[in-house]
C-alpha cells in the first residue's frame, strides 16, 4: 500500500458500486443462456425489444418454401448488394423457380441456397446479437432452434491511403486503416507464410472491440507471445477506442516517460518487426498497430533506413541520433554554460552572446523557459488547428512574435536560435512519442542546469542512463543490444550494415529461428573468381 495506495484512493472517488459486475463481463452476457424460440415472429420481436428498436435495425421477414424466415441486419454495417444477391434473391426468387420444396428446409438453406462465403451457426442469442452488431446478417427460420449468420460486412470505410504520420521518400505508400480486416490483409499480403498467426480477441465490456495478436509462429518466441496474450486478456474496461488504451494497460513501467511500446501505421514496418520475432497488436477502429517488445534504439529507426542504400540510411540515422541529443540537452547545456561556465565558450561567441543578451530582463533560465513553453504551445496549436489556420499560426508565432520579442529585447537572439534548433531537432526524431518524451525530459534537465550547472547536467544524464538501463519491454532490456552489450547485434543499432551482412535476427528478441540471410551473398567480384 503506502504512498501509491493513498494516491489511488484519492482518485477512486466516492460512490457505492464502484467495482465491475463480475457476472456480467459484457453487455450481452445476460442473453448467454437464451436460446431461440423457433418462432420467427417471437424471436424477431425479442431482438427488437433488446436492441430498443433502433432506426438502423432492419428485420426483413420473408417466406422460404412457405416457411417463415427473417433476415436481421444493421443498416449501414452490411453491404446491401451482397445481401440482395447472396441472400434474398436465392432464397426468395431462385428457390421458387428452380426447386421443389426440400425435406429439410434448414439444411438446404445452409448447404445449397446461400451464396455467401462465410456462414456460421449460432445457438444463443448473445452470439447472434454480437454478430449482427458487428455487421453480419442473421437468418432466422421457423421451427429451427439455431440461427445462421451470413457475413455480408460492408460499411463506409476509409480506403487504404498514404500513412499520414510516417512518410517515406522511398518505400510503399500504403498505410493501415481503421478496419481491422483491411489491416490483417495488408500484413498477410506481405508474408505468404503458413506460420503467420492472427489471434483474435474481443476487449471492452461495452465496445467489444476486435483485437488481433499477429506473430510468426516459426520466429516469435512463444514466451513473449504468451506474455502478450496474458497481458491483453487481463484488460477489463468499458471500451477500447484506440491502441493507446491497450498500451497503457500492457506496458511494463507505467511511470516511465519513455515509450516501451512502438506503434506504426505502416504495414511494411509491422511486417519487418514480425520478421524480427516481435508481436504486432492490431486494434479495430484505429490505423495504429502496437509492436512489442520495443527497444530504445528502434525509436530512431525509420522504415527508410532499410529501403535506401545503407550509406544513405546510416547518414540519416546518425543525424536522427544527433537530433535526439540536441533535443534533449541543448537548452540545458546553453543555460549551464551561460550561467555557470562562461569560460567554456570561445571568446568571440561569448562577446556575441553578451551583446545579444544585454538588456534582456530575465535570467537565462527564465528566458529559456518562456521560449520553450511558447514553442511547445505554438507546435500544439499548429497540430490541433485546421490546416489552413495552422499556417497562419506558424506565421504569427514564428515570424511576428519571434522577431518582435527579439527586437523588443525581451529574449536574446542566441536563445531564439537555441530554441529553434532544439525544436527542429525534436521533429527529426521519427517516433512522435519518443520525441515528446525527450521534450518533457528536457524541462527537467533545464531546471537541473539552472541550479547546478554542468554538474546538474551530468546528474540528469546519469539519471537518464540509469532509467533507460532499468526499463524493460516485455522482458527485453530497453537498451538492448547496447546494454547488455551484444557485439554481433550492433549490425543494426547506431549504423546499419548492408543487408548481406545482417545475417541474423536480433538476439535480444530471442527468436526461434535466428538466421535471415544466407552467408556469402556479398555482391561484386570475390577473390579467385573470374571476372565476367
Amino acid at each position, binding site marked *: 500500500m503506502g504512498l501509491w495506495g493513498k494516491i489511488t484512493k484519492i482518485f477512486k472517488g466516492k460512490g457505492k458500486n464502484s467495482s465491475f459486475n463480475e457476472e456480467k463481463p459484457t453487455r450481452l452476457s445476460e442473453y448467454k443462456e437464451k436460446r431461440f424460440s423457433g418462432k420467427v415472429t417471437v424471436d424477431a420481436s425479442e431482438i427488437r425489444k433488446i436492441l430498443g428498436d433502433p432506426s438502423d435495425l432492419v428485420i426483413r421477414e420473408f417466406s422460404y418454401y412457405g416457411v417463415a424466415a427473417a433476415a436481421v441486419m444493421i443498416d449501414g454495417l452490411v453491404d446491401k448488394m451482397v445481401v440482395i444477391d447472396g441472400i434474398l434473391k436465392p432464397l426468395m426468387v431462385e428457390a421458387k423457380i428452380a426447386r421443389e420444396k426440400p425435406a429439410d428446409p434448414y439444411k438446404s438453406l445452409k448447404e445449397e441456397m446461400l451464396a455467401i462465403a462465410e456462414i456460421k451457426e449460432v445457438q444463443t442469442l448473445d452470439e447472434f446479437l454480437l454478430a449482427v452488431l458487428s455487421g453480419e446478417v442473421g437468418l432466422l427460420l421457423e421451427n429451427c432452434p439455431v440461427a445462421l449468420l451470413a457475413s455480408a460486412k460492408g460499411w463506409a470505410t476509409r480506403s487504404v491511403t498514404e500513412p499520414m504520420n510516417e512518410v517515406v521518400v522511398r518505400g510503399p505508400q500504403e498505410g493501415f486503416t481503421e478496419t481491422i480486416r483491411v489491416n490483417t490483409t495488408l500484413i498477410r499480403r506481405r508474408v505468404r507464410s503458413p506460420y503467420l498467426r492472427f489471434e483474435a480477441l474481443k476487449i471492452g465490456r461495452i465496445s467489444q472491440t476486435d483485437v488481433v495478436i499477429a506473430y510468426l509462429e516459426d520466429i516469435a518466441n512463444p514466451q513473449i507471445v504468451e506474455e502478450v496474450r496474458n497481458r491483453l486478456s487481463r484488460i477489463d474496461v468499458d471500451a477500447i477506442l484506440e491502441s493507446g488504451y491497450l498500451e497503457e494497460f500492457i506496458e511494463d513501467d507505467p511511470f516511465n516517460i519513455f515509450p516501451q511500446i512502438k506503434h506504426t501505421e505502416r504495414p511494411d514496418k509491422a511486417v519487418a518487426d514480425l520478421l524480427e520475432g516481435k508481436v504486432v497488436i492490431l486494434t479495430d477502429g484505429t490505423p495504429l498497430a502496437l509492436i512489442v517488445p520495443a527497444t530504445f534504439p528502434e525509436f530512431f529507426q525509420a522504415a527508410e533506413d532499410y529501403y535506401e542504400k545503407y550509406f544513405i540510411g546510416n547518414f540519416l540515422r546518425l543525424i536522427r541520433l544527433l537530433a535526439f541529443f540536441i533535443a534533449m540537452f541543448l537548452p540545458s547545456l546553453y543555460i549551464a554554460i551561460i550561467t555557470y561556465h562562461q569560460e567554456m565558450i570561445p*571568446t568571440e561567441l561569448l562577446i556575441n552572446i553578451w*551583446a545579444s543578451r544585454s538588456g534582456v530582463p530575465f535570467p537565462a533560465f527564465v528566458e529559456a523557459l518562456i521560449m520553450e513553453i511558447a514553442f511547445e504551445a505554438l507546435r500544439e496549436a499548429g497540430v490541433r488547428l485546421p490546416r489552413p489556420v495552422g499556417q497562419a499560426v506558424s506565421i504569427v508565432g514564428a515570424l511576428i512574435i519571434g522577431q518582435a520579442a527579439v527586437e523588443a529585447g525581451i529574449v536574446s537572439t542566441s536563445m531564439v536560435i537555441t530554441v529553434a534548433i532544439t525544436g527542429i531537432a525534436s521533429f527529426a526524431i521519427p517516433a512522435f512519442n519518443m520525441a515528446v518524451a525527450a521534450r518533457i525530459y528536457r524541462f527537467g534537465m533545464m531546471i537541473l542546469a539552472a541550479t547546478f550547472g554542468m554538474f546538474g547536467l551530468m546528474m540528469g544524464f546519469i539519471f537518464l542512463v540509469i532509467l533507460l538501463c532499468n526499463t524493460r519491454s516485455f522482458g527485453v532490456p530497453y537498451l538492448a543490444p547496447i546494454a547488455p552489450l551484444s557485439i554481433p547485434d550492433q549490425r543494426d543499432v547506431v549504423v546499419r550494415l548492408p543487408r548481406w551482412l545482417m545475417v541474423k535476427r536480433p538476439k535480444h528478441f530471442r527468436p526461434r529461428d535466428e538466421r535471415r540471410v544466407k552467408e556469402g551473398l556479398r555482391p561484386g567480384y570475390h577473390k579467385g573468381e573470374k571476372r565476367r
Partner: protein
Amino acid sequence: MKKVLAALLIIGQIFFTGCWSRMELEDLAIVQGIGVDENKKGLKKDRYLFSVQVVNPSALTSKGGGGGEKPYVIRLISGELFFTSLRELNMETALRLYYAHNRVILISEEVARDGLKNLLDFFERNPQFRRDNYVLIVKGKAVDVWDGFPGLVKVPAIAIYDLAQKSYLTAEAGIIELGDFIELMEEEGVDPYAPGVKILLKKGRKDIRVFQTALFKKDKFVGWLDEKQSRGLLIVTNKVKGGITEVTNPFNPEDKLSVELEKSKAKWELKVVENKPIIRLKVETEGIITEVQNGLDFSKKETFQKLNREYAKSVRRDILEFINKTREIGADPAGFGRFIYRENPGLWQEIKDDWEEEIKNLSIEVKVQAKIVRTGMTAASIKPQ
C-alpha cells in the same frame, strides 16, 4: 508519510542550494588584457599601475554598434598587490571583471627588471586565468599599448593576441604562454623569455608591433634579443615555423633572394672533454625561394649547391648571434644548462653553482645543413622583351 517527507527533502535539496556561483553572462565585464606598469610616484603603497582592457560587446557586434562607441574600455588603478587592486577596481566598474577570457598579459620593461615572481603568483593562484595567456614585455608603458591602433579586430588586446599568434610568419619574436613562462622560470638550467611589444608612431597613428625577445635571469628582465637573435633562439629550440631570410645571390652579390623557412630540425648533442661540456647543435633546415631579384638559372645543380651554402650561412649567422648574445648577458633561454643536466647530471652538479659564468664560456658548435627544396610556382624570372 515518511516516504513523502523523504521525497520532499530530496527534491528540496535542489532549491535549498540556491544556485551557488551562478553568474548571468551580461553581468560580466569580459577582460581581454591585463597590464602592469611602474607607478612613477615611487611609493610602496602605489608601486604598480594595473590596467585592464574590457571589451564592449555591443559595440563589437553588428547589433547595437555604430554610433562611434569605442569597442573597448581601459580601466586603471594603482596599488601594490595585484588581486587587491583588481578587486578595488571592481568598485569602479558596474560589471564584475571576468578574467577567464583574458588573452594577453603586458608587463612593462621596468616592472620586469625588478622581478616577476610576486606578480605572477596571482595568475598561478586564480582559477580564472588560463595558462595559454600570452606574456609580453612592453617597451614603454603598457597603458599606451592598450590605446594602440587595433586595425580590423577593433580591440588592441585581441590585436596583440593575434599578432603573437601570427608571429611565426616572420619568426622574429620568442612568443610564450603564461604557463610555459612560469615553468621555465621554475626549472633548473633554463631562463624564461618573452616577446616584446611596442607602440610605433606612424602618421600620428599608434601601431602595435610584437617583436624581439626579452631575456630574463631567473625572474628578472636583463636584456633584449633583436629580431635575428630571436630567430636563432627559435631555431635552436625547435620552435620555428617560418620566417624569411634574405640570401645574397652567389653569382652576383648585388642581387638578393628571399627564402622562406619551411622546415627546421635542431639536434642537440653533449660532449664532455676534460670535464668541460661541449654542446653540438646540428640544424637541418629546408627553405623555399619566394622572391628572386634579376633571375637565376635553376636548371643547374651548381646553383642549388651554392644557394644552399649561402642559406646555411645565413641561418648559422642567426644562431651564432643568438648564442653570442646569451653568452654576453649570461642568460640561458634555450636551456643549455637543462640539457647538460638531463644528459649528464653529475657534470651539472659540478657546474650549476656558477652556471651564469659558465655559460659565458660554454663552447657550442653549430653545424647547419640547409636545403632549398622549391622555387615557388616558377623557376624562371620575368624577362621583359
